[in-house]
């Protein structure tokens, strides 16, 4: 059986806008209880909640309730939001995979078009590419490589599993028939990239 004074102080600390100290609690109780008595009761309340999902903590003599820090992960829930990789991002990823390590300027030279920062960010967010130091040339540009997560996602045992140019040609992936169409699609993607950025 929890006594009335303890209940009252517990409710006060729970409902208060801000952390309260013993003097404030005593004042709200009407002055019949001393701050010292309040402190003893607050300690009892804290003790009663110890190890539960609710914690009474002291910060500079002020007390407030909070959820224990070790349970913070329960208060945040991560939800997947699947998105299709844009064609521009797929190109950049492929270039990194085939030419790594590679700088942004080198990627642009290979792609023949400018690459927005956002595209690299997307690939890093996906954890498919990662910075791999700097190229020791003027300007010391960042260079990028693919990650283990990249190999895993695309079902590759290693980078050597990537098909060579001749394989691509044999598979029709270098077939120029669709070039105009692909180029048009690419332009669309670039527009989209621009909007994202």
């Amino acid at each position, binding site marked *: 059986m929890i006594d009335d004074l303890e209940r009252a102080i517990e409710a006060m600390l729970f409902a208060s806008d801000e952390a309260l100290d013993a003097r404030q609690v005593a004042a709200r109780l009407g002055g019949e209880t001393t701050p010292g008595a309040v402190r003893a009761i607050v300690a009892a309340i804290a003790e009663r909640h110890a190890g539960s999902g609710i914690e009474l903590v002291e910060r500079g003599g002020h007390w407030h309730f909070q959820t224990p820090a070790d349970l913070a992960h329960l208060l945040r829930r991560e939800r997947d939001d699947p998105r299709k990789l844009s064609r521009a991002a797929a190109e950049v990823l492929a*270039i990194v995979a085939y030419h790594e390590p590679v700088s942004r300027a080198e990627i642009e030279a290979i792609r023949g078009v400018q690459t927005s920062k956002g595209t690299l960010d997307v690939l890093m967010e996906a954890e498919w590419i990662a910075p791999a130091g700097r190229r020791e040339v003027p300007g010391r540009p960042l260079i990028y490589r693919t990650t283990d997560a990249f190999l895993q996602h695309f079902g590759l045992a290693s980078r050597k599993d990537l098909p060579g140019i001749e394989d691509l040609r044999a598979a029709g*992936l270098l077939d120029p028939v669709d070039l105009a169409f692909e180029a048009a699609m690419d332009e669309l993607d670039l527009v989209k990239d621009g909007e994202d950025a």
Partner: protein
Amino acid sequence: MDELPLAYDVVPAATEREDALQLSLDSWEGPLDLLLTLARSQKVDLRQISILALVEQYLAFIAEMRALKLEVAADYLVMAAWLAYLKSALLLPKDPAEDPSPDELALRLQLRLQRLAAMREAAARLLARDRVGRDVFLRPHPEGLHDVRKRRWDASLYDLLAAYGQVKLRTEPVVHMVARRPVVTLDAALQHLERMIGVRLDWAELSDFLPADYDGPLRRSAIASSFLAALELARQGRIDLRQDGAFEPLYLKAAGA
């Protein structure tokens, strides 16, 4: 039903002063509300109420308002007219043919008043409950539960390879590979003729100097370049040329032979 007290008003202003003269009808939510207030002044359960007495109370109240030249809203007057009719019907000897009978009308009015009273009482009991922010309190600043949306990018190996193929295609240097056309150059014809005139000493037709396996466009090219070569060699005085007439075959032999 008996354990339910009589109707409560949430805002008691009108009801507490029901015997005093009200200078305004603003205190009531319409004629039914006024009737309910008057009914409660009879201090009996609504089921035992005298409708006739209630009608008289209402009509007297409205008459008083009008005597004071106060504006009385139309719906109060409509109710007054209807109640005046009900009163006369209730007072007259019963006419069994009359439908609905005055008693039925009175019963309906009574049922309506009971229902309104029940809801008024329910509202009062509801508002008297322990309400959040007045009687019970929540945590003012809870940590809150948050959903963090994590983007998951999706692409297949095919997407990747197709994209790379496209990059390769787009950026491959453009080379115009012109197929080698079958021609015999002037130099080649000159060398050929020079070799041949050393072998043949007599007049021979130009076409005989051409390699036998030249045919089609290559042969035509060889004829053209050999003709030019023959003219050049004749100019140098190294061969003689002879033609018997226009479009006749062209003959040549080594000069001085």
